[in-house]
């Protein structure tokens, strides 16, 4: 560990974002880039997604998750990235100092820049406040995948899938691979969350779908025995099953942030960042799904490559602490916006778009205003769990404002320009 006591860039998390960032940094001539991965192998979530399609945009190939993870590791190693596995970061300190733990004990690491790439995880059964008993056999998709693809284990045989996000559908593939047969997909919303073109997939696989399910309840003493819910007509339906897959409702893996000096955004659950991807301590950058739940690996890869350019330039010519304007949702429908602040600097090359999500289906004009002035207006038509991209408020029009407020003016309520 002695060589790790100092490094130029320390990347926390060796999943898609961390590996892509590290590789791109090396390719841009940044020396001494170390990836710190707590697991026994780098690769992150794709390691246990034993299905297609990964890598289309970034590798121009269609790969299964584990092959994709291997390809990213190979590229990183070839580019000269130092990947350290079995290293847990236990604390983040100001100015790029990290506390690490390995089998050899604790050690401190000082980096010129730290990049946080700790990704996302699914919400647990407990976090969803599900009713019922607490038997064995209730797992998130991630836990199921790790069991099936990395450990050759099967926790149940005929599970019910809770949720209808993209990951919920990938759990069907995981089940098939592990010799399990999902017997139902249950969604609390009125329609499935994933884009509608995915819907035939469930039908194709012969998994009945129940939407508008309420009063979900898990039954069973030692192992799951059934799940019950009120269906769209308010009638209680009980499905006998030996397992429940709790899928989706991703949230950033922000444990380190919560215990640190860095500011956390209530909307995303991830760190507050500026248009360069810098956290509230300018020695910390953030990229990938830690920014917000949740995007595909391909998206995270691209985000990381762009962050690499910004980080490399910041090493050469630091932006440092500068005044900033806060970007904030002034509309309960807007769940979050990334970035959460705009640093006021002449340095260019920041993100050109903001990312937003909404809490409910909405159609209208997104407006950004400050001190009564409208900075931009864009038409959006979206649903929850869909990515929304909008132009960044123009820096030259911010003036001396402290806050830019975002609202959605519904159809028939057109904004005045």
């Amino acid at each position: 560990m002695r060589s790790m006591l100092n490094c130029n860039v320390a990347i926390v998390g060796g999943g898609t974002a961390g590996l892509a960032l590290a590789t791109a940094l090396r390719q841009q001539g940044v020396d001494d880039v170390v990836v710190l991965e707590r697991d026994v192998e780098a690769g992150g979530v794709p390691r246990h997604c034993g299905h297609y399609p990964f890598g289309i945009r970034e590798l121009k190939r269609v790969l299964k998750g584990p092959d994709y993870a291997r390809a990213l590791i190979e590229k990183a190693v070839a580019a000269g990235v130092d990947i350290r596995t079995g290293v847990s970061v236990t604390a983040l300190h100001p100015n790029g100092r990290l506390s690490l733990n390995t089998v050899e004990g604790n050690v401190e690491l000082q980096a010129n820049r730290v990049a946080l790439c700790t990704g996302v995880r699914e919400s647990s059964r407990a976090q969803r406040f599900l009713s019922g008993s607490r038997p064995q056999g209730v797992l998130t998709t991630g836990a199921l995948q790790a069991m099936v693809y990395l450990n050759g284990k099967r926790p149940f045989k005929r599970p019910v899938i809770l949720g209808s996000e993209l990951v919920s559908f990938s759990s069907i593939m995981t089940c098939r691979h592990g010799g399990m047969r999902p017997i139902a997909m249950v969604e609390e919303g009125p329609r499935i969350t994933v884009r509608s073109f995915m819907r035939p997939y469930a039908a194709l696989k012969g998994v009945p779908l129940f939407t508008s399910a309420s009063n979900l309840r898990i039954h069973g003493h030692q192992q799951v025995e059934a799940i019950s819910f009120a269906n769209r007509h308010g009638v209680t339906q009980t499905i006998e099953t030996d397992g429940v897959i709790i899928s989706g409702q991703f949230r950033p893996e922000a444990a380190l942030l919560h215990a640190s000096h860095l500011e956390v955004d209530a909307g995303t659950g991830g760190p507050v960042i500026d248009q360069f991807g810098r956290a509230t301590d300018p020695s910390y950058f953030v990229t990938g799904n830690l920014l917000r739940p949740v995007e595909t690996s391909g998206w995270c890869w691209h985000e990381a490559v762009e962050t690499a350019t910004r980080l490399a330039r910041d090493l050469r010519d630091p932006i440092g602490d500068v005044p900033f304007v806060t970007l904030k949702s002034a509309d309960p429908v807007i769940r979050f916006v990334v970035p959460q602040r705009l640093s006021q600097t002449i340095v260019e090359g920041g993100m050109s778009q903001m990312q937003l999500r909404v809490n409910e289906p909405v159609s209208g004009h997104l407006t950004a205003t400050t001190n009564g002035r409208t900075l931009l207006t864009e038409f959006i038509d979206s649903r929850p769990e869909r990515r929304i991209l909008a132009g960044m408020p123009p820096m030259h029009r911010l003036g001396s404002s402290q806050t830019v407020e975002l609202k959605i003016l519904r159809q028939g309520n057109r904004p005045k320009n």
Partner: protein
Amino acid sequence: MPEPETQTEVFDVAIIGAGVVGCAMARRFTLDGAKVVVLEKAAEVLDGASKANSAILHTGFDAPPGSIEQACIATGYAEYLEIREGLGLPVLKTGAMVLAWDDAQLARLPELVEKAHLNGVLDVEMRSREDLLKAEPALSPHLKGGFVVPSEYVIDPWATAHAYILQAIANGAELCRNAEVLGGAYDGEKWILDVASGQVKAKQVINCAGLYGDVIDERLLGQASFSIKPRKGQFVVFDKPASELVGAVMLPVPTKTTKGVVIFRTIFGNLAVGPTAEEQESRTDASTEAASLHELRAKGIEMLPALAEFEVTTVYAGLRPATEHQDYQISQHEARRYVSVSGIRSTGLSAALGIARHVADLNVGVAFQGAPIKKPICPAPDRLSNYHTRDWENAGHGGIICHCELVTKREILAALNGPMAPTTLQGLKRRTRATMGRCQGFYCTGALSSLTEGYLDPPIGERDA
């Protein structure tokens, strides 16, 4: 674990139930020289009422003066602090505050302070609203007033009972799990107990069956003088950073039936809100209810507004073995050498050592096979306190398996291969905290399923044939 059918020896004492009271009882009688057998119905110890509680070591300031409960809490509390270092049990001296949120509650405070003093908890003192808010600035400004109970602690509820039973085992006691007592008879010299897989003989029986206290009395004595009325308590546990919001345990002004909803730090570093108090028939149904959990969370936020910003880590529910009586139901049946220890409703963790001593004192003059053990063996405990050194901080831990709770491979293997090895995932969780953190097993279940292969029944997952 010995098979009951092979037991030909006559034990001095058979203890029925390995909850915290049974574990403390086993320790007490073993150290007093008795040859003890503990008969536990479940596959793991602490499978009933002791599975889930608020993990507070109470002073007993609010117990009914003159009750057996108050006496047992007082002696149990004192003995805990006396022995806990030797047993390697961590404590966190948080102190507690009893808080009034309206004028009616405010008016009751003086009588409660007086009661505390009557109970010998003399450091209980009234505080002004301003003083309380100064000490605990995160509390809602709607606070009316309250008093402090400086000597309350939070402890590890599982390691505590494990330490008792492990010390009993290390000094000669035997633990039989999956050993439900189905019936039995006293032949004038000894009890012959029909256990799930055979017979166990003992000169004396102590019923510490908790939620099944009345059932065991009925099976062995033919009748019970009380009936168990299970009272469910649900809890919401918040993520670790929330624990920085408060120092003390926040107690409401109690009512006749319940201590009310408490906000407390856990020794594992979380902040919890609970319990509810719901009477029910079932002795096994510890379901959580979405509506109650939302209410608990709201209640927590009402008292501690900043709590709204923190994630929930987990939820749980426990069953308290209340009876129709207010006090503990401890009764001795001398002719048949039988003691029933029942109705240990919600203070069992604090009182267990005191209850054990109380029962041991009922037996003065009874000879055991051995002499009192002067220098008992103290087995190595599970060290899971967030406020003390953990295994991961020491080299050679073999890698961290559960990243949220920083549980190491070395710890998990030690538990799986140690004395009283867990045979279920539940048991392993209580011994190591694996999967009990904020991700609830998202990251570590896979690795854990391999690491525990061959140890747990049911296993976390089955391998394809």
